[in-house]
């Protein structure tokens, strides 16, 4: 079987907190500027300078999908995403309550839930983020950068140990 579906890879340490992702998300999906409609939201601890973009993780075993009483939520394996069918959705907000990431939104103007749909494979938040704090990668590549950084640390420590050893001899 072919590998399928990329994922949003978020690196909070790169985020500058500008919230352009929120703006482009609402304009792309709804044709309006309104951060309250954005599928992605930057959580901020301003007095520490900490910003963490939060969005749907497109869970494999999605609590929103399981809890939905009318089976309006399904997995789209092609794009590896979780989708809501608003023709079936009754607007009970069970999915909003159960999502462990707070990624299922509820829009008080349209009275509908909403979530990240990966913009059908061209996530606008990724396209507009110049820092690449939000990236779109194959799932197995997400950990690579961290793996490399950790390996570099280990290598540096090993070199130091070797140097220390040769010094003592």
């Amino acid at each position: 079987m072919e590998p399928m579906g990329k994922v949003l890879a978020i690196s909070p340490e790169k985020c500058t907190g500008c919230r352009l992702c929120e703006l482009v998300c609402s304009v792309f999906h709804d044709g309006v500027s309104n951060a309250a409609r954005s599928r992605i939201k930057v959580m901020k601890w301003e007095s520490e300078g900490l910003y963490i973009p939060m969005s749907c993780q497109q869970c494999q075993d999605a609590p929103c999908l399981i809890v939905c009483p009318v089976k309006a939520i399904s997995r789209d394996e092609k794009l590896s995403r979780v989708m809501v069918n608003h023709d079936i959705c009754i607007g009970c907000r069970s999915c909003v309550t159960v999502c462990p990431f707070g990624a299922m939104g509820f829009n008080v103007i349209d009275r509908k839930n909403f979530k990240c749909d990966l913009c059908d494979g061209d996530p606008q938040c990724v396209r507009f983020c110049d820092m690449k704090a939000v990236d779109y990668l194959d799932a197995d590549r997400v950990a690579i950068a961290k793996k490399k950084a950790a390996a570099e640390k280990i290598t540096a420590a090993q070199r130091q140990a070797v140097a220390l050893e040769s010094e003592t001899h």
Partner: protein
Amino acid sequence: MALNRKIAYIDLSTGKIEIKPIPLEVRRKFLGGRGLDAYLLYNHTKQGCDPLGPDNTLMVSGGILTATLASATSRCHVMAKSPLGGMLGSANMGGFFTPELAWAGFHHLVIKGKADKPVYLWIHNGKIEIRDAKNIWGKTVTDTQWAIREELGDDDIKSLVIGPAGENLVRYANVMTGIKNSGGRTGMGAVMGSKNLKAIAARGTMDIKIAYPKEALEYNKRFIDQITSAKVNQTQGTLGTPFIWGATNSWGGVRTRNFQYNQMLYADEIEPESIDENAIKTIGPYHMTGCFGCQVHCRAQYKIPTGPYAGIYDEGPEYTSQGGMSSEPDIPGLENLLVCNHLVNQWGVDNLEIGSIISWAMELYELGILTDKETDGLDLRFGNAEAFQEMLERICFRKGWLGNVLAEGGIIASEKIGKNSFDYLIQVKGVSNLHSDERATPALALNIATASRGSDHLRSRPAIDLYHLPVDVMRRIYSSPVPYDGPLSSEHTEYIGKPWQVFWHENCYMGVDCLGICKYHTTFLGATLPNFEDWSRVLYYNTGLELTPREIWDVAERSNMMERLFNLREGLTRNDLKKGDMLNHRYFDEPARRGALDVVGKVIDRKKFEKMIDELYEYKGLDQNGVSKPETLKRLGVDKEPSHLL
């Protein structure tokens, strides 16, 4: 949609609030932001009103493109009569306040009167409420914002606040939002304080319909690529505004010891790389932060690494803090800079003004014009970090005779100190100059002399004049959208062609200020960045409003004329040292002592300078006294002001 955002008139004396739409004809004339504020100021204040009295009117606004897809549209503008020089008061800041204000349904607030006790405004989805501020009065800039969030139970609230300096009516107190975004110049925080208005809190979830969403998104992407591909922005996005410190200081463009020198020695410690190294130790490698929707992210983050304030988080320091806290008072070392930057942010006072004022007092102290009697024994010599920090506190909290006097700003202070203290004050229209030294750069000197809000770089400074651009590149920039075939010179020490450049930048900067876009996204520090042509498109895609580049230029010229009319009404005369378009005599009489070979020995040539002013007046449609000609007012459609359209 953006054009539906409202204007609200708030009378704090009576508690009356009136909400109105902004007519399209007014939009076409002034767009929004600073331009429309200038119109409102002229229409809503009486000549000669007390800047700190209830008759002064405070405007708070976003630009017409605020919160739309135009990139970096976070700019918030505040305007009133200035308590610092009695002329135009006007300040502009980034952050996240105006998008929230726009999502709450508003673009412009007109605040009159004075509340009988401390209050704050709570603006939420079309509604405005005046609330008791007893729980937040006395708090610092950040504590005020967090306390409002707690009181109203919403962490997404964005507030515009004053700190203790504004409450204490320090005449150069800031209006602030976030950790360090400051409407700093001309004392708008004191105007808020005088109205007993501690804060304006906003939170909105209302839609702003984008006229052509697909086109707006694609154009914005192009806009962003243009911005992020500019080297100047890449550097600024890594080091912050201090990236220009080294170059400017080495050629000799940095005021040191007030105005005695034009270069700071031993300045390496405050270089951005040094700040970076220390911040990397305390914060991490990606320690830059941005305003709403901005890719330049020029604000550095840091934690103070050493001393009694070690471990405290703040943002900056900006280039202007390097000048105000380091070069002007000639205090080397990183700790003083980082600590003072933190203090001004917390107490809410203009870093440029307070640095300049204390440095002026230091010069007076060394000259014996101020003595230990006035300083209450404080050894106010240049280089004394402890005395500088003590003075900073005395001013913000109005402690002691000198603290109180300096809190009144340079002009009033010079009258109280007496002797020839005024001769040493580096100011225009009552507003101190930033730390730049313009003796070798006539274009920049012309800019600060004629800037509408007093000695300031963000009104008309042709900063790219320092890049020695080839004349054909300059010609391409400066002959659009209005043709110009006069002389231009790549040489920054020259006088020819500079008046047109100043005139062009004055309109360019007014343009972004009406749109609500940041100056780092236009021809300010980068010669390749967007201007009139791009704005015309971006305005159309986002709002549906059709204005040609030339029409946007006209809006800018008209708005600049409104500011001129206000200043003329408040007594601007061409050569008045306190209210005119005139520089301190030191620019003409004291040669620059340090810096590059073509800088040492330079003074501004008074005759050539006056010729530049003549020429600039001609472009602006003013007579030789700097007064607007009737035909200019007619051409710009402002010959019947005040017209009270709003």
